[in-house]
């Protein structure tokens, strides 16, 4: 059978022709899937991922916080240790050595340099004291000094009674110039506490005897651990 289509060509339907309106509508529907897809991606993928990452970070934060607290505790211990060290070392630093001082003192007394007289010490007392000869210099120094009173009863025996004063002056000046006085930390002058004397001629030994008491002050600087560290 032969089919004849009497319609003009523009009205004839062809199987291959797509309705542009429909195509446009389909394209619009497809494009509308993009925001839908984005919404699904954000809500179903990114948000759960963010929640998971947030939880992991929180766990890590808890772990690191515990570790950091331990480190801070150890840091706090440093101050305790330093205080303890300071306590012990400051006590050890307060030690004042007397053996060499006494040795120098004796050597000074028996020195052959005394011309025309001899000196001896008949009584010696060494005691801690709270003030120095300069008037609480230890307190001004912030309490980092230890002072000792060195109190001696001296007997001077000279050949010539008329030179008793010279012998005493010589004793003071040579003492002040001696290594004993300079090295051992004695303050001020040897004659600071000298209150006069009464020379007495001793017939039995043919000597003039002068007895007097002197009190000297020896000061030692105490170096604490913190001072050593320059703090």
């Amino acid at each position, binding site marked *: 059978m032969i089919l004849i289509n009497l319609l003009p060509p523009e009205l004839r339907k062809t199987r291959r022709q797509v309705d542009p*309106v429909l195509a*446009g*509508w389909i394209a*619009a*529907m497809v*494009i*509308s899937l993009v*925001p*839908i897809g*984005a*919404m699904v991606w*954000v*809500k179903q993928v*990114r*948000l759960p*991922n*963010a929640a998971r*990452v*947030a939880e992991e*970070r929180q766990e*890590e*934060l808890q772990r*690191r*916080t515990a*570790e*950091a607290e331990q*480190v*801070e505790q*150890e*840091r706090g211990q*440093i101050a*305790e*240790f*330093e*205080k*303890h*060290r300071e*306590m*012990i*070392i400051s*006590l*050890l630093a*307060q*030690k*004042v*050595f*007397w*053996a*060499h001082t*006494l040795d120098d003192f*004796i050597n000074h007394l028996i020195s052959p340099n005394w011309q025309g007289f001899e000196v*001896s*010490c*008949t*009584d*010696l*007392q*060494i*005691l*801690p004291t709270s003030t120095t000869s300069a008037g609480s210099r230890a307190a001004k120094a912030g309490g980092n000094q230890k002072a000792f009173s060195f109190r001696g009863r001296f007997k001077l025996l000279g050949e010539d009674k008329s030179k008793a004063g010279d012998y005493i002056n010589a004793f003071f000046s040579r003492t002040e110039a001696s290594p004993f006085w300079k090295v051992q930390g004695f303050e001020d002058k040897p004659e600071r506490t000298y209150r006069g004397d009464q020379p007495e001629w001793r017939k039995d030994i043919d000597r003039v005897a002068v007895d007097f008491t002197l009190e000297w002050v020896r000061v030692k600087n105490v170096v604490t651990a913190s001072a050593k560290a320059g703090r």
Partner: protein
Amino acid sequence: MAESPLAKYVAQFKALPKQQRLGIAFAIPAAIAGIAGYLTWGALALLGPDPDVPNLLRRDTGSGKWNEINATQGEIDAKMLVIAERDKIRKQLDALQAEITVAEERLPREAEKSMMREVIQRLARDVPADIGVVNLKSVRINEDAAASRGTSSKGELWSMTFNLDVEGDINGIIKFIDSVEKNPRFMIVNSISIRSGEVRADGSSQPPKPLFGMHSVRIDLITYVYAKKGSK
């Protein structure tokens, strides 16, 4: 057969003018896109500045999930800075502990108090005869329980005074004091009182020679007894 509501709507839709039909048809995907876009925008605000989201879509309102994550990361970084100092702090503690151990070893422990008396006695006995003579006549021990010399979290120091009565010649006395001061066990010579011995004339020689008697000496030694915390 009755018409279904859907068929009714389709028939009504087909009855509309073409323009209206086109308008309604394209409004549907536009509405879908609009609603989905709005919801996505809101979700992006909840999400925050996610590094895996393209810059164009990233929203930073300050209260998103990733803002929270970044803040937490900042806290973690701060903790890490503290943790990084751990080795340095431990090294410092070790050095301090070593210093403290050396210093503490010089102080007698509570249990060693009686031993200190023996030490003093031995030092007096050990003064060489060719240097001098020293006799330890008596030793008294005073513990000043009220005078703690220091407290720390690790322990406490108490002072202990030994009052010595000694006699001897000056060389022996100086040697004894030197031995005490140099002894590894820490002792401070706190006070010394020396009274010179009598000088007599030796009548057996001509001219008479002076005979020097022994000096009487009182020495106060102080040491510090260390009691570790919890040991008392």
